[in-house]
């Protein structure tokens, strides 16, 4: 039997006075990791909250693990573990209090795994939440989400504000959670390295719109930086997929998307000498995308 998609959003729209999420289409199958990347205020958290049924869309549809959201959120959330950076536990209570509470709700609670996570995260059951550092709080929240063995993990900026060591612990545990091939993760992060490290799919969001959504290999493979020498100051070819140009004297760095073998040839025939073709890191792609998206928004505004 075919498994339903982990997440399937079609034409998702959410209108606020200050912000509009517009026509978001987003889907990925169970067993995959989808990373949402975008600048602050792009709409990442709004999408995740819509997926969780915490917000209702103004238009469009959302299905999570086959359940229509937000109407079937109770059934869906039995199989979802959610963490967001603005989520807090009860300060006056211990980790054990929270573990007992979650255990009383989910019959899938794995007590052995919870104990393993406690040791791995160096947490103590009887520590009160108010005495935990930020990193420990994130780890405690992660423990509560993972030990119930959900089929889908939805994480909103899970690694924000963590030191590199804790960040690695959190990411490692997210990866461990995927050992079962039907478990999926949808997560957002400012940290492009996190997204690059564990995602199967990458979605870039800007200004409430999806700019690009592809599997990681295609996403990373589609971008190149061409270093050119333009001795005779000839004009660059007018390619629609040029996203950024940085010129310094006769030296020029051109960032392109949708790269294929015909791109260098077009530069060569325009009289440019290509000295290097470089692949981009996700951070560089992110910055180029933001710059380009900003310029497009400005153009739309002027028009």
């Amino acid at each position, binding site marked *: 039997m075919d498994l339903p998609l982990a997440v399937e959003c079609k034409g998702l729209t959410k209108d606020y006075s200050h912000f509009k999420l517009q026509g978001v289409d987003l889907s990925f199958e169970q067993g995959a990791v989808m990373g949402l990347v975008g600048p602050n205020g792009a709409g990442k958290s709004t999408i995740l909250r819509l997926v969780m049924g915490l917000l209702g869309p103004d238009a469009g549809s959302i299905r999570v693990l086959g359940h229509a959201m937000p109407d079937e959120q109770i059934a869906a959330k039995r199989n979802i573990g959610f963490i967001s950076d603005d*989520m807090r536990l009860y300060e006056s209570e211990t980790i054990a209090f929270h573990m007992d509470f979650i255990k009383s709700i989910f019959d899938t609670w794995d007590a052995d795994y919870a104990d393993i996570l406690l040791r791995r995260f160096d947490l103590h059951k009887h520590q009160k939440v108010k005495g935990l550092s930020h990193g420990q709080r994130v780890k405690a929240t992660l423990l509560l989400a993972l030990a119930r063995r959900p089929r889908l993990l939805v994480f909103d900026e899970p690694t924000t504000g963590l030191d590199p060591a804790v960040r690695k612990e959190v990411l490692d545990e997210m990866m461990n959670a995927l050992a079962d091939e039907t478990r999926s993760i949808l997560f957002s992060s400012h940290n492009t390295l996190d997204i690059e490290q564990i995602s199967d799919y990458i979605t870039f969001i800007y200004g409430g719109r999806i700019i690009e959504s592809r599997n990681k290999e295609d996403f990373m493979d589609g971008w190149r930086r061409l270093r050119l020498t333009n001795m005779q100051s000839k004009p660059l070819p007018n390619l629609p997929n040029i996203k950024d140009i940085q010129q310094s004297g006769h030296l020029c760095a051109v960032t392109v998307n949708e790269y294929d073998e015909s791109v260098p040839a077009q530069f060569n025939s325009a009289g440019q000498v290509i000295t290097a073709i470089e692949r981009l890191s996700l951070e560089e792609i992110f910055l180029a995308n933001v710059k380009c998206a900003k310029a497009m928004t400005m153009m739309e505004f002027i028009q």
Partner: protein
Amino acid sequence: MNVSIIPQLVKKDFLLVYRTLLMFALVSLSFIGILPLLHGNIPNWVLINIGFMMLLGPAATCGIVLLMKTNVFEKEKSTQPFIMSLPVSAKEFTQAKLLINLPVFTVFWLVVSAVAFYFAFGLGLFPQGAVPFVTMVFLGIFVAYTCILSVSLLFQSLPMTVLSILIFELGTSAYLWTIAFLDPVAHFVYGPVMVWNTTATTIVTVQVLVAVFAILMTLHIQGTKRDFI
């Protein structure tokens, strides 16, 4: 299987507040214990005023502290996303909050009302004719509480809840003064026989209906909310 988690949410809230409840219960019981010692040693009108404060003070404060801790602070301290990540809808969340707040306040209110009635009429501080009016007073307090609880659940905002406390406290006082001077009520207050005339029964019925309406309206509105965080 979709079994509701309302019992777990109520139990969680109870565990979060039981120390506070215990403290208020002890204060209330102490005050109730002190009142008989005062009876006969101070003038009756002083006992009535002090007794009213001693009985209602802890009960009302407990009700307000409880709804702040279980409801308003859930939002203010960002524990609500944690709760709403669990298999629960906005309507069930509200039902759970009602199921912790309403019974606890009702128990306090019933005990306080029973003790007040015993002192007022059992010990003869008030004439029997005041029974309908005192009933209206205590029902008025319950109605004000349900209205404050509704505002608190609907807005989950500290300023809105504080404002509603202020409005309903002043409003209830004004309302009680008004009915105290209504002739069909005032005429019998000092009489030796309680009279449940049409005015008195209508006022009591309306009070009960307002309390029920406030709760049902809250549940309805919460059930229709599409954004709940």
